[in-house]
């Protein structure tokens, strides 16, 4: 199972994270313990500087077996359920939000806490889903990437958690 997992040497992936199927994790990304990444229908490719928090679920449910490609600087907060078809860069998935299959998340979108995006189709860049009724609007600026948080976690996790070993040589 782990043979299919490819971790960049600079990525920090905790051993207690639950990763199944063919998953690639890029440089400087951090995967918390108890985060779930499931490559059910096809592989998952995660880019650089992504932060995936505990109990968040990322699953590839693409019926055609296409890979779920996740860009850079994405922030998947606690308990978020992301089953999108593809994900761009600089997106923020809020706590316990739900992104359904067949949703194409472009760049700099932010899904609010407990919001859901289930309708198939594109989420235009900088779309913000917020509030109880999943209102949508287009923001003028990108959501702030969790840069400082990533830096801290990259230092802290190796001292307190067992990590999954890197399998990709840093080229």
């Amino acid at each position, binding site marked *: 199972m782990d043979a299919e997992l490819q971790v960049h040497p600079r990525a920090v992936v905790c051993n207690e994270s639950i990763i199944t199927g063919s998953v690639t994790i890029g440089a400087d990304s951090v995967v918390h313990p108890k985060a779930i990444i499931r490559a059910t229908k096809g592989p998952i490719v995660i880019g650089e500087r992504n932060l995936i928090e505990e109990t968040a679920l990322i699953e590839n449910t693409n019926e055609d077996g296409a890979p779920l490609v996740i860009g850079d600087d994405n922030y998947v907060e606690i308990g978020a359920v992301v089953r999108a078809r593809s994900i761009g860069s600089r997106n923020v998935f809020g706590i316990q939000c739900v992104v359904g299959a067949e949703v194409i998340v472009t760049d700099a979108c932010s899904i*609010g806490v407990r919001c859901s995006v289930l309708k198939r189709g594109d989420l235009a860049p900088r779309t913000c889903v*917020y*509030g109880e009724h999943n209102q*949508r*609007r*287009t*923001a*003028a*600026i990108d959501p*702030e990437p969790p840069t400082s948080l990533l830096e801290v976690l990259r230092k802290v996790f190796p001292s307190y958690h067992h990590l999954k070993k890197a399998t990709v040589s840093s080229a």
Partner: protein
Amino acid sequence: MAELLQLDRILYECSCSEWAPLCRLFYCRHCSILRCHSCTANEIDCTFCGTCLENVAVGEARTRKNRCVNCYQCPICCSTLSAHNSGEAIFLSCSTCKWSTFESDIQQQATAGNWKILENPHEEELSCVLDQMKQYELNEKAQRDILKRRSNVVGSRLTDRFGLQQMYQKRKQALERPTWLAPEKEPITVLDELYDSHFTSIVDLSKSLSLESRIMQPLSRGSECRPIRMPLKGRRVLRCTQCTHNLSKLEYSPSSIVFKIQYFARTYVPEIRLWQETKLAEGGICPVFISVVNESVAKADVVLLANNDDSSLECETPVVEFSLPPHDENSDNLSHSISSLTPEDDTIILRKRNRVGLKLCVKVDEVREMNILSLILKWKNELTSMTSDKGQEWRETRVKVLLGKS
């Protein structure tokens, strides 16, 4: 099980014959009666900003139009805006809907506070009209005064030895009808034509403001938005309407949550709670398990009487008498020591410090959606009155226990 802790399952009768859960009631020790929110006098004790907790004096709040000058609200979703630093300048952004000042006409500025808010373009004209109306008010007041005094003729004959002439002139001036100085508005005769395109053109809803945000900023015409100053909050003081003593008053600082005066009913009146869910079967005698707790720091004697006239159920236990020890703050609430597990009689089946468990028997006559058990609670507690001799009197209130369907 959580159903048992619902507030509206047990209702107490207030002195104004309203029914409310005990935790929402107050107890006036000066009048020795229960008080609820609707029979107390409410007054604003202090105005403060709920975000920065700054205390604003009432007069100042009025000049600031009841708004905080430091905190801002999102014009889209009402959440608090937070200041962010982008190099040199500062911008505000909302963490919920991601609205930012980049979407307004003032994108960034050097300081975090003092953002320009939308202003009324007719401000000057309106204040001019207001001044005029004040002059008219003075004029009318002077006319009314003259009718009262009827001493208008002497003034002209007086010399100005005592400065009376000046006073007289002033009053005479006040009597003259002021001339209207504010610009007059011509009534509009020709209205803009209503074009069909108003109804046929496609509207981009994502660009227009929602009704809520239009209401929040009435001065914004169209789609312009600016940060909105945070409305101030008022903190209330409750007073007994009869004796005007305070029933609930917080400490001066808005950030403090310590009460200076608190007369909550729960600390003076024994509290009745459901202990187990009651299963009511038609035609039989069913047990109802309730517990009575004494939260006051004095011993309480309690008498529970069945009030079968008001009840939809017949209570077969007519009277229960017991006394409860005071509530001890130092005792460990988590310890499971039960003072007496063996039932004292058929009714009192458990005692645990300041709590007693009762088993009342009720007779169910017919099937109902809601069965109400009505009780009369009598209690004697030396704290129920300010004067010590009156503290030995029995107090009484009616209690409704909502048992559910049979």
